């Protein structure tokens, strides 16, 4: 094995010959000479000049030359040895030389199709390579040796520009560290080479002619005019489309369908699987397989065409049930007579239930399915299959059920690599490799109604709208998720976001007084999420706030939603005293269509929120048990069995349990941390909370009662809030210290916390302001100074 470029290798000569001779100019010149000799010679013979035989004889030379160029030089096969020059691609044969240095390689590779492919898909621009020049080996041999290994690992036929690009990176010292910084691995780059090889193979395949039966293919099959009106011919649409099934499981299913349709018995297949799991792709691929004369399938199935029946158009065409029945019977008769039709019922439940856009034709179809005279493929999801089975067991018993499982990560990535060229063509963008892996990761996390690979494809398609300079990156996918699902998935990167996270405590304390422990706990949880180090399978944070009433438990939840989650609109509040019966569990998980205020409906709509479960101790034990899964895994299934994710929420439960004990201990001068453990033990032993429930929380925060000093700050906040309300009228209010002291004395109640304070301010300050405005004493631009005297009068 020689790891050097050999300019004398015959492949190099052939590549240069091809470049010169296969040019349009040379080919046209040859053609012109051929025609001139042939016709010139013929003309001379016509004029009775025997010399005409000579040009005619010589005309074969240009013709032979064209034939040789087009056949011998069209493709330069790899050599027979494993020397570097015998294995490199055509473009490299023309670009490399004996004197090529690693620095030269960096200039050559972006000019090759495969090299530029890797650079574009992995975000490795030319400046990146210019920066690494000084760290490259002095000679090309180690790079060529690495290329050999990469070719074998990636099962590549040739050493292409892509292989060489990855080889260059692999020869860098500490390349893994460098790749880590770009959030890449060597395995990712290998996947990139495999991706290029796959696309290259796909392009070559399109040049192959597809044999599809010829002009008399359908002579023996009947006409189907009614069917054609109400169905789509999938065979016509997908014949020769080179659909490639990427899932081993799907290939098995196609073989299973062929097997079912070849042997006797019930000639139907029910493909049961979630939307997005590739059920339609299986049928499309089957349609293509049956129409390809070169596939090895039984003659009884060759050239059979698959028609997908369109339920809504069928219903809209019929004026009444009788007419609809007549149409369906006509279609079934045509299919039976034609002998070459396989009927596909996509969303088959539409044919087994009454409703808008659906029609119940089970009574017509069951005998047909039982008799097995017509081949039918039904597509439906698990839930609908269960519903149909419950409603019509006879129908379910006649179906040959095949379960279509969702694709795993490797299969999904293969499918995405296969589909991306179509998206790129439609949307005029380029997808990076990381955008594909990110689409898989995020769709797995946030899209619950669709299965893989469908959901990753959906996300990739929508990410095209957020492409930067026509390149869809992992950030584009993240933006698509953030915009579509209202969550925050990006690691805090811009200055503003980072500053907000770092100063979260002070931002919260602008609205909250004291309760440092609780504020710090929630701030830390948000910082972990913002830095991307939180457990992805749990909510951002789960907290139980314990303490007397009016000390800021609910206020902290509100402040958090205001400061970090984008407004109090992102606070989902449930008063748990409304969930005191076991039957209330169903209200938690109601479908959004029937109850838009259920917990699951609200979180589904707004996953990036603070979920506040107020007065949790009042909820029924069954309700608490239901919430265990949310606290533990961040998932709750709604009544339609959909997984609703709470993984982008902070869950805060508040309770007054232990309030008296906290108050007594604090009054006695104890610190929270000294009695926290004992208090939690007491709550468990008194049966107020079960240990498994309390253990699910990340942190249990105790809120201490507010002192008179705390209340003074609360009062300032309330007055500031009053001023904010008065802002549109350009009136402001100030309360002098003595007046404040009076208000505090009146509003202080250790049992009720800050709540009475707000009422006192309402009764006094706000009443004074209202009276001043109405009497005309307060005009725009004026400031009202409230004195102890005024307070006393009020």
């Amino acid at each position, binding site marked *: 094995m020689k790891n050097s470029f050999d300019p004398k290798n015959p492949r190099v000569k052939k590549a240069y*010959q091809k470049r010169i*001779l296969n040019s349009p100019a040379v080919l046209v010149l040859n053609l012109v000479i051929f025609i001139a000799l042939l016709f010139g*010679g013929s003309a001379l*013979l016509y004029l*009775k*000049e*025997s*010399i*005409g*035989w*000579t*040009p*005619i*004889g*010589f005309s*074969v*030379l240009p013709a*032979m*030359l064209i*034939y*040789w160029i087009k*056949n*011998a030089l069209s493709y330069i096969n790899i050599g027979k040895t494993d020397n570097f020059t015998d294995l490199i691609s055509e473009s490299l044969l023309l670009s490399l030389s004996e004197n090529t240095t690693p620095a030269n390689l960096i200039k050559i590779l972006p000019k090759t199709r495969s090299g530029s492919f890797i650079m574009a898909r992995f975000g490795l621009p030319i400046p990146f390579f210019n920066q690494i020049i000084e760290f490259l080996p002095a000679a090309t041999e180690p790079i060529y040796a690495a290329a050999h290994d990469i070719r074998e690992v990636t099962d590549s036929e040739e050493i292409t520009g892509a292989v060489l690009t990855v080889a260059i990176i692999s020869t860098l010292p500490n390349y893994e560290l460098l790749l880590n910084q770009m959030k890449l691995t060597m395995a990712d780059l290998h996947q990139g080479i495999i991706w290029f090889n796959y696309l290259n193979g796909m392009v070559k395949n399109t040049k192959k*002619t597809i*044999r*599809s*039966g*010829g*002009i*008399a*293919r*359908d*002579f*023996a*099959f*009947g*006409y189907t005019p009614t069917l054609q009106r109400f169905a789509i011919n999938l065979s016509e649409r997908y014949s020769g489309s080179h659909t490639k099934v990427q899932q081993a499981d799907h290939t098995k299913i196609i073989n299973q369908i062929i097997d079912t349709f070849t042997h006797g018995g019930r000639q139907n297949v029910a493909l049961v699987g979630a939307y997005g799991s590739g059920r339609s792709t299986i049928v499309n691929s089957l349609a293509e397989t049956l129409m390809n*004369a070169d596939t090895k399938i039984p*003659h009884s199935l060759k*050239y059979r065409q698959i028609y997908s029946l369109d339920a809504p158009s069928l219903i809209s065409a019929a004026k009444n049930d009788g007419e609809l029945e007549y149409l369906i019977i006509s279609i079934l008769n045509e299919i039976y*007579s*034609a*002998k070459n039709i396989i009927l596909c019922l996509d969303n088959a439940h539409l044919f087994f239930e009454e409703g808008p856009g659906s029609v119940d034709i089970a009574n017509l179809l069951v005998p047909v399915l039982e008799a097995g005279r017509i081949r039918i493929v039904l597509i439906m999801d698990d839930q609908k299959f269960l519903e149909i089975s419950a409603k019509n067991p006879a129908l379910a018993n006649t179906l040959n059920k095949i379960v279509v499982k969702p694709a795993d990560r490797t299969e999904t990535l293969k499918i995405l690599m296969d589909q991306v060229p179509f998206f790129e063509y439609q949307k005029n963008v380029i997808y990076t490799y990381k955008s594909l892996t990110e689409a898989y990761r995020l769709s797995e996390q946030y899209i619950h109604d669709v299965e893989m690979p469908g959901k990753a494809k959906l996300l990739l398609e929508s990410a095209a709208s957020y492409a930067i300079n026509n390149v869809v990156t992992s950030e584009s996918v993240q933006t698509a998720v953030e915009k579509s699902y209202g969550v925050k998935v990006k690691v805090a990167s811009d200055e503003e976001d980072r500053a907000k996270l770092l100063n979260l405590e002070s931002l919260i304390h602008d609205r909250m007084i004291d309760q440092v422990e609780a504020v710090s706990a929630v701030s830390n949880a948000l910082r972990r999420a913002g830095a991307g180090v939180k457990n992805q399978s749990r909510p951002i944070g789960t907290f139980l706030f314990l303490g007397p009433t009016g000390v800021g438990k609910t206020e902290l939840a509100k402040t958090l939603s205001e400061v970090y989650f984008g407004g109090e609109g992102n606070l989902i509040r449930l008063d748990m005293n409304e969930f005191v019966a076991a039957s209330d569990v169903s209200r938690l998980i109601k479908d959004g269509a029937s109850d838009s205020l259920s917990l699951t409906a609200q979180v589904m709509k707004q996953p990036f929120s603070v979920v506040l479960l107020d007065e949790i101790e009042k909820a029924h034990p069954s309700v608490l048990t239901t919430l265990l899964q949310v606290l533990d895994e961040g998932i709750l299934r709604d009544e339609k069995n959909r997984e609703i994710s709470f993984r982008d929420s902070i869950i805060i439960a508040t309770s007054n349990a232990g309030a008296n004990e906290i108050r007594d201990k604090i009054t006695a001068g104890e610190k929270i941390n000294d009695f926290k453990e004992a208090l939690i033990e007491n709550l468990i032993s008194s049966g107020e909370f079960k240990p498994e429930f309390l253990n699910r929380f990340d942190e249990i925060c105790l809120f201490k009662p507010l002192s008179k000093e705390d209340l003074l700050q609360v009062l300032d906040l309330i007055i500031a809030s009053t001023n904010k309300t008065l802002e549109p009228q350009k009136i402001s209010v100030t309360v002098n210290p003595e007046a404040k002291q009076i208000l505090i004395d009146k509003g202080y109640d250790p049992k009720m916390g800050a709540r009475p304070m707000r009422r006192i301010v309402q009764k006094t300050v706000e009443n004074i302001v209202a009276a001043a405005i109405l009497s005309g004493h307060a005009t725009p631009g004026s400031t009202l100074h409230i004195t102890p005297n005024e307070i006393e009068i009020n």
Partner: protein
Amino acid sequence: MAITEMFFWWYSQGWQVFIAKIRTWLSGVTDFFSMDSLVRTLFKPYRQISAESATSTTSLDLKFHMFIDRLVSRLIGFISRLILLIIGTVIIILGSILSLILIILWPVIPLLPIVGIILSIAGVIL
């Protein structure tokens, strides 16, 4: 140099490539005329017209009508298929003969310039 390589290729791989091309062409023509399907379904009713089958309750008269109906359909099918089969077969045979001649003459083709010179010197005129 290129010319030498071209001649070398002509007598080695070139010949094989030509034969492979003829095979592909013949296969394409066979597919175009659906020769396989035509032979397999030679006597089947054309387009399944009158494909209804009689049941035990069908009257004898109707059964006879259906039989005749089907017979006519089979006849139409047979004739149309036969015409296509004949056209396809003729094209395949002519193509095969021409291809065979070219395969046989393949080694002679590069010598045609010499043949041309000889004919010119011999003063052969058509």
